[in-house]
């Protein structure tokens, strides 16, 4: 257990900074699926030097931003069931085709939140093991997308590491995560452990090791 007050002492990157780091790592002309919640921020940080095509698993390729109040169409929604728009060049398809884009390995990147990520790339993000179980498209995305990026806080509100030796929560997928973007570091999942490829300027490797349950190295 890490002291959660540490988070107040040493500030990590805010959500927009993390989103911006992810946005910079998405290459021009990628097909991308952004998970509901925090990952949606990524689309606001794409630089003008590239064009990204967003997929929404409810049958929309070429998703655009949130419409103005007077342009809302309840038949045009995203996977989070919120009104969206479609950009020129976009298309609609039925659910089986939409998930063939995912399961057939056509989506280049998906960005998802996490409850836990293990050192071998297991992801738990769909169930706390309590309440009504609901998975949506998360298991398809992690099994099918070419690259699975996780966007998350490094530790929980209770001060527990989210990057762990072994997940304790029900898995979404086994060995599926490529890279984790947290408020303290960007970490690749490798055979040797959590490989740090970017570290917050306010912290040391020692601090990062202290808030990670598993070997971190540079």
């Amino acid at each position, binding site marked *: 257990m890490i002291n959660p007050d540490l988070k107040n002492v040493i500030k990590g990157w805010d959500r927009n900074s993390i989103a911006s780091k992810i946005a910079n790592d998405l290459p021009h002309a990628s097909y991308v699926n952004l998970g509901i919640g925090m990952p949606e921020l990524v689309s606001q940080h794409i630089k003008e030097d590239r064009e990204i095509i967003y997929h929404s*698993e409810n049958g929309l390729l070429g998703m655009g931003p949130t419409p103005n109040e007077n342009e809302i169409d309840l038949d045009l*929604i995203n996977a989070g*069931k919120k009104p969206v728009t479609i950009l020129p060049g976009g298309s609609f398809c039925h*659910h089986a085709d939409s998930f063939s884009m995912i399961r057939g390995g056509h989506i280049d990147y998906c960005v998802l939140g996490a409850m836990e990520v293990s050192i071998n790339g297991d992801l738990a993000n769909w169930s706390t093991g309590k309440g*009504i179980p*609901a998975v949506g498209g998360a298991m398809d995305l992690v099994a099918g997308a070419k690259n699975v990026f996780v966007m998350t806080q490094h530790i929980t509100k209770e001060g527990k590491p989210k990057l762990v030796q072994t997940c304790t929560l029900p898995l979404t997928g086994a060995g599926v995560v490529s890279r984790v973007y947290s408020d303290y570091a960007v970490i690749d999942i490798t055979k040797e452990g959590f490989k740090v490829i970017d570290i917050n300027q306010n912290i040391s490797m020692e601090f990062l090791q202290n808030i990670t349950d598993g070997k971190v190295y540079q």
Partner: protein
Amino acid sequence: MLINKVKTDFSEMLCDVFNGATIMLGGFGEAGSPIELIHALIDHGAKDLTIIANNAGNGRVGLGALIGQRQVKKVICSFAKSAKAITFPELYNNGEIELEVVPQGTLAERIRAAGSGIPAFYTATAVGTPLAKGKEEKVFNNKKYILEEALSADFAFIKADVADRYGNLTFNKTARNFNPIMCMAAKQSLIQTKKIIEPDETNPEHVITPGIFVQKIIQVENPIIESNAIEEGIIYP
């Protein structure tokens, strides 16, 4: 005599529905949800139903109302949680309704498979997770897959945008979702459509669901919008 699948009243639409039937409901959230057909199912009164849908209803309209009437014994869906759900959580927490959770893509593919004569298939989705429990695992090209079985139904309740009397359908934007594949997987596909056009007005290049997958059609020009109905506190029946 000309083929004409268009009916004028709901009792004719649902005349073959029986207790214990398995019924697919199109829609993703409220987009493409056949609310009027579901309300006709409440009027019909069939019980012990198994419902296959992406979600488990909101408020007390549409599927939320059907569950509230205790006509459903089991829901097969990918995402039963919703901030506006009332009836499903109530029955689920009391152990009065069964739930089979299926990953959304596996749900879609199981439905598509049923409609295409494929009894089962292997998929990488859910490998190594609790949802793979009890399923056959097999390795192809050094990667693990699990066996998933096709999912068919006695009836599919579908919301289309435009239909002709042959049952050629088009949908509106993301209200398409599960509707076309459910038409393929059910013995009887019952369609509510906003508009009916003449066959010579149908552009064959634009047809999404060809008429062979459709049995009956009824026109509902101004369908209830679920979120508006919930906001207005509408309860069915």
